[in-house]
């Protein structure tokens, strides 16, 4: 089977993140493979391993859209175990919102499926920068694929896919027929780390670079010009500062209530 996993190169949340790029876009200098995409990659690897792995003709293609540095997300995916990497990059993509991003990714996925369509498109539940969760649903819409999002479990029986989705008021079991688009939560598995063997093997794997021309997308349809939303302003929110810290001397519970009363929170 053929699985395309979307991997995004995002600013590392361990550091301060900034919207100092052109048009209030994210500064991507200290970026990593989005942690939440590791769960999708792991899910893909488990699915193909259960089917005889690459030896049996299965493959996992890691696809990332983004500027030059985004190739690092693809490289890391290859080290973790993806079979091939694809980096969609074009100056005209800069500043794309979810709609423009999903347009470009849909075109790339169609391009990669030209000879053999992918059985599954797998994504994380959200990117850790934009955090909108819009792209998986928009991709399903554009590709006309069944959408199985926020899956916390995933099983395949032939072409029949079953997944669990945990909502606020109820949990659902979902069923769809391949090909499908699936986004997975961080509950689904424990992602593996790249090991020495994986890192060495990754050096021999191919990374294909695609531009908008390769996938037949008009530059005017993406980037800021092709986006349907525009960010007008971005202001740093004053960082929270520590307030009063006390050490419990047997009466901290009472002091807590006094604080709440003073704040009119009781």
């Amino acid at each position, binding site marked *: 089977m053929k699985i395309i996993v979307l991997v995004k190169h995002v600013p590392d949340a361990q550091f301060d993140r900034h919207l100092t790029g052109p048009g209030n876009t994210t500064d991507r200098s200290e970026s990593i493979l989005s942690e939440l995409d590791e769960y999708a990659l792991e899910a893909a690897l488990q699915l193909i391993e259960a089917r005889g792995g690459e030896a049996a003709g299965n493959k996992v293609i890691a696809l990332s859209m983004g500027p030059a540095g985004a190739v690092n997300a693809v490289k890391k995916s290859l080290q973790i175990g993806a079979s091939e990497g694809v980096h969609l990059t074009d100056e005209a993509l800069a500043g794309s919102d979810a709609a423009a991003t999903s347009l470009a990714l849909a075109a790339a996925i169609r391009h990669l499926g030209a000879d053999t369509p992918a059985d599954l498109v797998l994504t994380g539940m959200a990117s850790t920068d934009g955090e909108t969760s819009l792209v998986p649903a*928009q991709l399903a819409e554009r590709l006309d694929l069944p959408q199985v999002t926020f899956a916390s479990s995933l099983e395949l029986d032939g072409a029949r896919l079953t997944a669990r989705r945990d909502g606020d008021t*109820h949990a659902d079991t979902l069923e769809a027929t391949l090909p*499908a688009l699936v986004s997975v939560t*961080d509950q689904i598995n424990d992602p593996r780390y790249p090991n020495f063997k994986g890192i060495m093997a990754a050096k021999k794997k191919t990374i294909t670079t695609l531009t908008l021309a390769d996938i037949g997308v008009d530059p005017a349809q993406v980037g800021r010009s092709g986006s349907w939303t525009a960010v*007008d302003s971005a202001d*740093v929110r004053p960082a929270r500062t*520590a307030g009063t810290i006390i050490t419990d001397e047997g009466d*901290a519970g009472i002091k*807590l209530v006094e604080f709440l009363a003073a704040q009119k929170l*009781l």
Partner: protein
Amino acid sequence: MAKVLVFIDNPGQVLKKASLELLTMARSLGEPAVAFNGELHDDVAAALAAYGAQTLYRPSATDLDDYLVGPKASYLAAAVQTAGATVVLTENSAEAKEIAARLGIKLGAGVITDVVAVDTDGTAHKSVLAGSYTTTAKATTPVAVLTVKSNSITPEPAVTGTAPESVTVQVPETATAASARVTARTEKAASGRPDLTEARIVVAGGRGVDGNFGPLEDLADALGAAIGASRAATDAGWIGHDAQIGQTGKTVSPQLYISAGISGAIQQKAGMQTAKVIVAVNKDAESPVFEIADFGIVGDLFQVLPQATAEIKKRRG
């Protein structure tokens, strides 16, 4: 006047506060209408009228709940076209955001999520990068789709109520074709406490509660608060996953967030640092949660919380 369509999905017996907020916001932006799905109970119908809904759209199909997201987006797209709406407002839940996402593609409309306020010119306000920035954004398309966080505005009924006209919207026959089907649904038991994302006060526990949420529940009950948790606590199975707050859980911005036995990892902070007031109780003075707490107590939660609960009860007599 702009037509503003509010999507209300399966409210049950009574309209949620979040829906009342959406209706109130809709009135500030133009002429409100409602695209409804599910059974319409009398109380709900009365509330829609009191909040000024001019028209009530309902789907021709009754099986939208049997599928995930796609058919609801098709219905909503048809409702937007029937209504001639230029603004669509939905809740900010995972499912509502996905419906908004697909609706956006169907209509060629910009989608803005996590909105906390909208100006009359359509400028939406939100906070991004785990609360570290506030931004304004606008849809550049003829129709704008906004998903609005609950607790963003105070719900207020309309000055004059309405008797909304009911219109059936034809759901396209192809709507369910490429959709995942819901084959089983397990309802979760209601806790009797306020909904986490709507609650004014949240009491959250982490690994430090060591399997015992009892002292947090007692405090929550005394304060009328909802219970939240860190991922360590939900992963341990001490409390349901729907209580998780953070990057991969819920984002809350209550008036008061009481964090107990939580270290304050970046992924946890991402879900709560827009709370008005943060109180933290943790044994370890070095815990990062103290960097953002307005009031921090270095101490044992099993001592501090019961004492606080007792004191609240005493004050209330």
